[in-house]
């Protein structure tokens, strides 16, 4: 592990560097578009831009990892199809107002059990719904590593810019 880190310091293509460059670039892009949009200090706008920054961080992490991992693939897929999925959901919501009673009845049929720890983990790790337990644990390990890296990089960026 230690030797790996030493290599990573010299290696420009390490995940940390890739993530940092991507994230900063997306931040820049975001800022530029913000500037042209004008400065608004609304609460909702702030929340939305926070969300955007968060999604940009996740997306750049997933891009930096590449499609070799299941979780990054799932994340990228989700990000790519986010608009479509949300549109579908919205449409479904509009449609389902009529059918709400039926759906309630249908939901009662499903036996709901206490969500186990594995299920919680599946929800946390992107793309974990369709994995068996072995894969899930492996992906979790990698995801934790990447998430820790992401947090570290973001922390240092925030510190730098607050100076």
């Amino acid at each position, binding site marked *: 592990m230690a030797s790996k880190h030493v290599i990573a*310091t010299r290696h420009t293509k390490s995940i940390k560097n890739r993530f940092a460059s991507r994230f*900063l670039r997306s*931040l820049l892009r975001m800022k530029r578009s913000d500037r042209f949009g004008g400065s608004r200090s609304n609460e909702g706008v702030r929340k939305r831009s926070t969300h955007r920054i968060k999604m940009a961080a996740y997306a750049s992490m997933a891009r930096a990892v590449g499609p070799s991992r299941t979780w990054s693939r799932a994340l990228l897929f989700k990000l790519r199809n986010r608009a479509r999925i949300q549109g579908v959901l919205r449409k479904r919501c509009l449609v389902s107002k009529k059918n709400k009673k039926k759906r309630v009845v249908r939901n009662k049929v499903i036996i709901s059990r206490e969500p186990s720890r594995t299920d*919680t983990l599946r929800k*946390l790790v992107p793309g974990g719904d369709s994995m068996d337990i072995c894969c899930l644990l492996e992906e979790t390990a990698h995801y*934790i590593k990447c998430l820790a890296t992401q947090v570290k990089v973001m922390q*240092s*960026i925030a510190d730098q810019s607050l100076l």
Partner: protein
Amino acid sequence: MDPPLINETSFSAANPSSYTLTEIWPFPPPPPSSTRLGLRMDNLADPDGSLEESTLTDQSSGNGTRIRKTRDFSSEKDDSSKMVSTTTSANDLNDSNGKRRKISGSRSENNDSRAETEASSAANNKTAEQSSKPSEPPKQDYIHVRARRGQATDSHSLAERARREKISERMNILQDLVPGCNKVIGKALVLDEIINYIQSLQCQVEFLSMKLEAVNSRMNTSPTTEYLHPKDLGAQPFVATGTISGPQPTREYVQGSQSEWLHMQVGGSFERATPSKKKSPEVTSASGLQGKPFTERGAFKSATQKSCSGSGSAELICKGRSNNPIRVQSKRNGGIEIMAVAERVGRVEIGK
């Protein structure tokens, strides 16, 4: 009931063909009228035990009567089942395979007589096949997990054991990753720790993005602290200062940072930080004292290549216009540095 059983075992061990016939016997409804078989059933089913001493000569003599045979049928169920189980046990005594014996033994302990007969007969068939195929291929060839002493050698249990080992290995990896997880004992608690850790990391990401958003918005409002994207203020302020500073006809204005990469370097850049600090006063003085944009040629070129080479060249973290001096590298977070490396992309000539 013991004596006839013993008789039967001895008999079947002695005569293998006959026990196969008896094994077939319960399934087809009426047996073909072979007197020998009927007699055998008679012998076994006789509650009095008058014909206990059934020998080969007795079987072959063939004195069966119809009435007795029908009476046999009424009491056939339990007796025949017992008989078959005994035959299986007898066969297993001959058989060398221990596992088969165990299975059939456990099955013969069942209470249900019907199921027992079927199962035991099936086991009997298998044992017959085994005896016909003397060299049965060992099952653990294609699974690389070896069973230790006292562990089951079934293929299913082998696979299950392999899976469990895999899972525990992964759990160990995760335990190493998650801080404070080494002391926790128990899979469930470890999973809890992992879940908590992931959640905390995600919360941190959320919080940091909030922080970054605040920084961004603050930068938007106050242009002097704006150094993440000097490109924005690159165009206008420079021109403005250039025009304000007055007529200086032939001068090349090099924009400090037309585009800017921010790139990470981990550790050991303290030596490289010094030349940039040396360089920074010049730049600040040049721009600050005169109030004019500075000229500088090709100083920034090397900065971008340095990231690949890693050799120490001057790294300039450039603010486009520097009221406060150049904001550079601080070593924190274990040597992670984010450096804004200015890349000179284009030069702007402002002439008359």
